[in-house]
């Protein structure tokens, strides 16, 4: 696999959300707005890159039978770093992502890439793998978040698009369902169908 292929695979060919269908729980739960999706995606990207690099560096020092607990400890410490740094410097984003930051630990993309890629490849390629998959994940979450935010609140990244008629109190009448869980499933389903269609052509 060339460097270019390695870098591009996460966006389309092996996109974690649309193709591999990994990490669905944070995907659906955090994408109620575009900025939340992007924040969650970038936090996961950081964890993914760092854990991929470290795991590929120490892969020969870890006996096979204890590799999973070792990986989890390494991943969990990077997640804690992200959690603490976010709480200190981006308190608003930290509050809206809430519980989902600690849950990056059990996000199957991170452990999946550690097990399937970083533990078999050199640090440089593992870093590229982390960048690629992480940004692909962020892209998917941002697209999903934008669509849900546009349909559900009539805004995108907080900017009012004035798409919807106003009610008698002056509040826009939006399709509220898209911000709630069922809307997330519907948007995700249509996006996956669309991506699959495009991939086959």
């Amino acid at each position, binding site marked *: 696999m060339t460097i270019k292929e390695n870098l591009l695979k996460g966006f389309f060919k092996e996109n974690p959300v649309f193709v591999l269908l990994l990490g669905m729980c944070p995907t659906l739960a955090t994408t*109620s707005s575009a900025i939340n999706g992007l924040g969650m995606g970038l936090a996961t990207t950081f964890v993914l890159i760092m854990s991929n690099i470290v795991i590929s560096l*120490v*892969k*020969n*020092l*870890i*006996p*096979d*039978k*204890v590799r999973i*607990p*070792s990986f989890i*400890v*390494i991943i*969990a*410490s990077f997640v*804690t*770093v992200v959690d*603490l*740094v976010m*709480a*200190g*410097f981006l*308190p608003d984003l930290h*509050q809206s992502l*809430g519980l989902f930051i600690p849950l990056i630990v059990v996000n199957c993309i991170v452990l999946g890439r550690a097990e399937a890629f970083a533990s078999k490849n050199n640090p440089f390629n593992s870093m590229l793998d982390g960048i690629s998959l992480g940004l692909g994940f962020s892209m998917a979450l941002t697209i999903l978040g934008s669509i849900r935010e546009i349909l*559900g*609140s009539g805004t995108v990244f907080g900017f009012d698009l004035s798409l919807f008629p106003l009610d008698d*109190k002056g*509040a826009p009448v*939006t399709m*509220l369902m898209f*911000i*709630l869980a069922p809307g997330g499933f519907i948007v995700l389903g249509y996006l996956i169908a669309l991506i699959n269609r495009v991939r086959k052509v």
Partner: protein
Amino acid sequence: MAKLESTFKNMVLTLFAITAITSVTLGYVYELTKEPIAKAKMSKKIEAIKKVVPPFNNDPNSEQFSVTLDDQSICEVYPAKMDDSIVGYAVKTFSNKGFGGLVWLMVGFDARGNIMDISVLEHKETPGLGTKMDSESFRAQFRGKNPQQFNIKVRKDGGEVDAITAATISSRAFCDALGKAYQAFTKGGVQ
């Protein structure tokens, strides 16, 4: 370098080494971020107090005191002063009757107990429904009201508060928290 064998000794040593290194790293990061986290929390609290009481020039946080209510819950009261005369009290209050966990409010009272403004600190209500408790149109109905004459209950429960459409439970929690704040105010605020 060849991969380490999965012998008992190797496994114990590896796990010990990994956990030891990560603990040291995390301890270091914790020390680094401790101050910014405390600062962020504090500035958020001060922002909330500023929103609900008139301009003040003391440090409400250092003059804060706690009041224990009838149901044993504890509310924090922050007196706001302008040149040593009281301009209002900000009361941090909560309700456990929310739809998705605790609802935290900061309520501002003037010296006679009229509600000046309310700011929502933290909640986990349904997005788009219960989250509207933070909206201007809902909060406006409380401004200038004194809970002694104004029955803080939603109309469904015989009170005078217009509940948020499709979020009666969240509105009830809001009223419950407000009632607690007033109780804290009457018990400890006027001194």
